[in-house]
């Protein structure tokens, strides 16, 4: 039992207990920890912003040799976002926003098509090598049935009657099993986070383990 002597570990442990006091009820200690957290994370975001965007992206390439003058445009566009602070010039933000939205949409389309659609369709093809054993054939058919029924479930252009309704029902069964599996997996993730904090409290703070 060697309780830690560093005041930083004590501070971290106290803050952890203050946050967990929320489990008992919403109390001033929790509100205190909540506001310390919001204040620090905001200060932290600004520091990263300063260190990661403004210095390497704006200040250095512009003012230090091999001046990249082309960077004037994104910086000008960026400064226009400050238009939002004044009633009169609030329309200025539309220009940087337009560039940001155009760039984001342009980047996503080909990559979404490639990785999320074509690659998944290609992987769903049932090639003969998937039918090596009885089990693998059943599995291949089940995966294909799951995909088929799920796409039917997400089909909005037809009323859900007789045959079509039945396929959608099978679809929701597959979807719910998928959600159940993901839920089960996520319970694991949350518990391991708690274990991480408890290891800190027991091992690093109280020095029991």
């Amino acid at each position: 039992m060697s309780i830690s002597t560093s005041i930083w570990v004590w501070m971290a442990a106290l803050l952890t207990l203050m946050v967990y006091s929320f489990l008992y009820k919403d109390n001033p200690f929790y509100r205190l920890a909540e506001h310390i957290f919001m204040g620090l994370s905001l200060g932290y975001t600004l520091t990263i912003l300063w260190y990661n965007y403004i210095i390497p992206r704006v200040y250095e390439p512009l003012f230090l040799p091999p001046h990249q003058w082309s960077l004037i445009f994104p910086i000008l566009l960026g400064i226009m976002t400050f238009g939002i602070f004044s009633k009169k010039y609030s329309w200025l933000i539309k220009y940087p926003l337009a560039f940001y939205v155009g760039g984001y949409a342009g980047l996503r389309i080909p990559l979404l098509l490639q990785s999320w659609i074509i690659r998944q369709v290609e992987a769903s093809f049932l090639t003969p090598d998937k039918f090596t054993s009885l089990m693998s054939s059943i599995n291949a058919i089940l995966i294909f049935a799951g995909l088929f029924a799920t796409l039917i479930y997400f089909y909005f252009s037809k009323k859900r009657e007789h045959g079509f309704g039945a396929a959608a029902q099978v679809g929701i069964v597959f979807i719910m099993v998928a959600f159940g599996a993901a839920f089960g997996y996520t319970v694991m993730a949350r518990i391991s986070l708690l274990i991480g904090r408890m290891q800190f409290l027991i091992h690093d703070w109280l020095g029991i383990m």
Partner: protein
Amino acid sequence: MGFWQRFLQLDRKWIFLGIAIVVIIPLIKPIGLPIKPTKPVIDLFTYIDTLGPESGPVMVVTGFDPSTMPELMPMEQALLRHCLTKGIPVISFGGLYPAYIGMAKMAIDEVSADFPDKKYGEDYVFLGFIPGVSAVILSIGIDIATTFGNDYYGTPIDSLPMLRGVKNYSDISLVVDVSGTSTPEYWLMYAQERYGVNIGVACTAVSAPAYYAFLQSGQFVGMMGGMKGAAEYEELMARKGYPTGRRNATIGMDSQSLAHLLIILLIILGNAGYFIVRRGERRRGIIRRKR
């Protein structure tokens, strides 16, 4: 109100207390339940195990912050330990976002302390954070030296002996993204699809289901999902007799088991109570309607 109604109205606090107790006890007195490695983790482990001192370096990318540290730190340390034990040259990349560099530093310091014979610059290299996210992944495909300039400690890339023959992805045998976010998809899109480099993923249990689809279609070489994935990797290391250091993930798995059992019990009890109460109401309802 009958027993079951009160039972269903059980205050949340008792459940919270139950979980806390069930998690703390094994941490103080571990039970040591057996761990059975699964295929995705075995695939990742065997791929790295086939590499050796003369094969291309393995790049371990740190992509997690404090909130997902318990699951992902043991994974990163197991990967670094595995490479250093086998003498595989390893590049620890401090990550695509600034928040991760602290984690990368912790991992590399703790692991390299256990390998005094391994020299920095020859057996392992630590590259710091640079802004640009997907721009960074793309430019590593062209030339690592121009992308990073110098390593975390400021020494120029080309003066690091280990990186002499390493120009871009074609010289790297594997990139493992240890990530708590969706960055593995960036590595997939911007590195694997464009430059053909092999990608392994070590992720939180919550993002594992989504990556199974990419694993099954062969886009990922292997995968470690959640603390159990880390424990399996530690188990595979131990079975091969490699040094594992303090097996945090394996110790955690006992608490994980008990917590899961308690939650399953809660689900069963919650539903049992719900059905009993509903049947009770329906019976009383019928009696009333009969009158």
